[in-house]
């Protein structure tokens, strides 16, 4: 009977109940969408960082990370890469020679990182060939070809076939200068990366550095990211003297983003739920205050205070149980739709690209968040009902019955 009375009570004032249910639906939907959108941005940032730059796991000389000097290289890197590719869960690996240097043209000079790559492998690991938007990739044989970003080319007034001069330090510590011919211009979604990185063939850079079989970095993609840590552990066993790091360790900002998302998810949820709590308190208090005489009668005829309390709680929980699934469903459908079609943020893309975020964001949400949210709504409904229910049981039947 308590369930029946509570259920029917919520339909006494349909408009008010629909307002509360609507608030719950909108609140749940908003939380889902905001979290999914933020996660989509983080996903975009992380995948952009992995695809363009850091891959899933990298191997370096233990001192290279801190000092970035060319002398901290991995020897016989070709063999090392072959060994890495034999490892379970490693999809593909590539090798890079890295050096800091100066790019000079007739218009000026800029500090850059020179990335000596294996063009074939790099195309597989970072799909770098697809990012070349003008000119050619390294396919056609030319002496000292170089690919720089479109942004950098524009800033330095460089075109395809222009000659540029790159200055850097050799393994011996001498400063060397070499002329390169621009064969292609690339663009990634990360404008900061584009400003800082130029690409040459590893064989050319190694020759100029004075070490034919050296490299500074092995970067690899793995098949199953769930096994990131176990794969990393296996590689650490394989290279006990080298530094083997996953993408979170290599790029702490990626880790920060992932932690940030969890924190902001919680904060968003708490803010929306707090707003809902006050909405529910307001509504249920109105529902209690307009039924004072009836509640007094119920207590007069023998309804215990706990039963009155439970009745008010049930009414609120019913509202939550109607609103939450609708909100979850609408939220889920929104995430599925935009997860497939994306949200075009090209109007803001210049700012976003500085942070490595793509123009089109694909909202994504783990299933666990839906359950967390469902639980949060029920808890919110219970919290919101506590005060009105307490108010109801504080009524004195003798006074309540005669209330006008």
């Amino acid at each position, binding site marked *: 009977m308590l369930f029946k009375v509570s259920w029917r009570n919520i339909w006494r004032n349909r408009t008010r109940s629909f307002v509360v249910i609507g608030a719950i639906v909108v609140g749940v939907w908003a939380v889902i969408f905001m979290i999914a959108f933020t996660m989509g941005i983080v996903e975009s940032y992380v995948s952009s960082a992995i695809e363009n730059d850091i891959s899933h796991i990298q191997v370096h000389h233990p001192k290279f990370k801190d000092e970035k000097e060319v002398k901290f290289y991995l020897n016989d890197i070709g063999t090392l890469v072959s060994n890495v590719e034999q490892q379970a869960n490693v999809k593909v690996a590539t090798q890079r020679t890295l050096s800091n240097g100066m790019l000079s043209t007739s218009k000026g000079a800029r500090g850059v990182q020179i990335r000596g790559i294996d063009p074939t492998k790099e195309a597989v690991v970072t799909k770098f060939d697809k990012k070349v938007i003008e000119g050619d990739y390294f396919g056609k044989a030319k002496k000292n070809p170089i690919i720089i970003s479109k942004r950098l080319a524009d800033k330095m007034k460089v075109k395809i076939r222009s000659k540029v001069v790159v200055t850097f330090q050799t393994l011996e510590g001498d400063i060397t200068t070499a002329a390169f011919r621009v064969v292609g211009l690339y663009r990634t979604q990360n404008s900061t990366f584009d400003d800082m990185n130029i690409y040459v063939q590893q064989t050319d850079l190694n020759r100029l550095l004075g070490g034919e079989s050296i490299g500074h970095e092995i970067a690899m993609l793995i098949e199953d990211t769930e096994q990131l840590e176990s794969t990393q552990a296996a590689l650490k066993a394989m290279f006990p003297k080298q530094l083997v790091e996953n993408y979170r360790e290599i790029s702490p900002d990626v880790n920060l983003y992932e932690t940030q998302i969890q924190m902001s998810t919680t904060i968003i949820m708490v803010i929306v739920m707090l707003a809902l709590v006050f909405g529910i308190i307001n509504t249920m208090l109105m529902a209690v205050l307009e039924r004072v005489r009836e509640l007094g009668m119920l207590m007069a*005829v023998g*309804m215990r205070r706990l039963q009155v309390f439970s009745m008010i709680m049930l009414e609120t929980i019913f509202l939550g149980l109607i609103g939450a699934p609708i909100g979850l469903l609408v939220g889920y459908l929104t995430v599925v739709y935009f997860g497939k079609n994306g949200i075009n943020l090209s109007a803001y893309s210049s700012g976003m690209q500085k942070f490595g975020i793509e123009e089109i964001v694909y909202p994504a949400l783990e299933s666990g968040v839906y359950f967390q949210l469902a639980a949060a709504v029920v808890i919110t409904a219970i919290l919101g009902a506590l005060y009105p229910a307490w108010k109801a049981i504080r009524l004195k039947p003798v006074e309540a*019955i005669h209330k006008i």
Partner: protein
Amino acid sequence: MKNVISVSGITKTYNPKTIPVHALQGVDLEIEQGEFTALVGPSGSGKTTLLNIIGGLDEATEGTVIINDQDITKLSDGQLIQFRKEHIGFVFQAYNLIPVLTAKENVEFVMLLQGRSQAERNKRVNELMAAVGLSDKMNNRPSQLSGGQQQRVAVARALAPKPTFILADEPTANLDSKSTANLLDMMAELNKQENITFVFSTHDQRVIDRARRVVTLEDGKIVSDDHRDV
């Protein structure tokens, strides 16, 4: 006849620490099983206060209220709720039916609180709805009933748990003459046939005319107590 209600030395003072209002000043009253009693008196005479104290809804400042040999002034809040549920039926001036329940469900409600079985509840509801002449309105909600019909349902609800007596606070105040006459006929019949004890507080001369005992209060004191043959 056995006393079902025995009130002794009841006083009730509102606002004792600020501006004391003495609603009842040493009331003694005994009501026997099967009586049809009207508490009458001008507004502020204390009749509703007395009714509330007899019904265990309000506490007396002093005195004892013994119902069926039990002093209810010594019961805790929880025990009082239980006591009311088992022994007292209430009829209120404004009917106070639960608007979201049908007439049948309203009558059934207190029996549900008592934990009666479905079969027992159905039997009792059918009997009572027939007794109040509303068998054909079982599934109507209060909003679909007239004031008189609602008050009949309220009487049926008060009778449902088979209480020791019924307390009715101005039960006819919102009814027209015809509804009042019908309601009083019905209650008088129940009183006569089933020996149910009724205690009214009322201003209504129509009720007073039908009462077999009229207790008059003034300024919180009983000033007359007339037993009559009606």
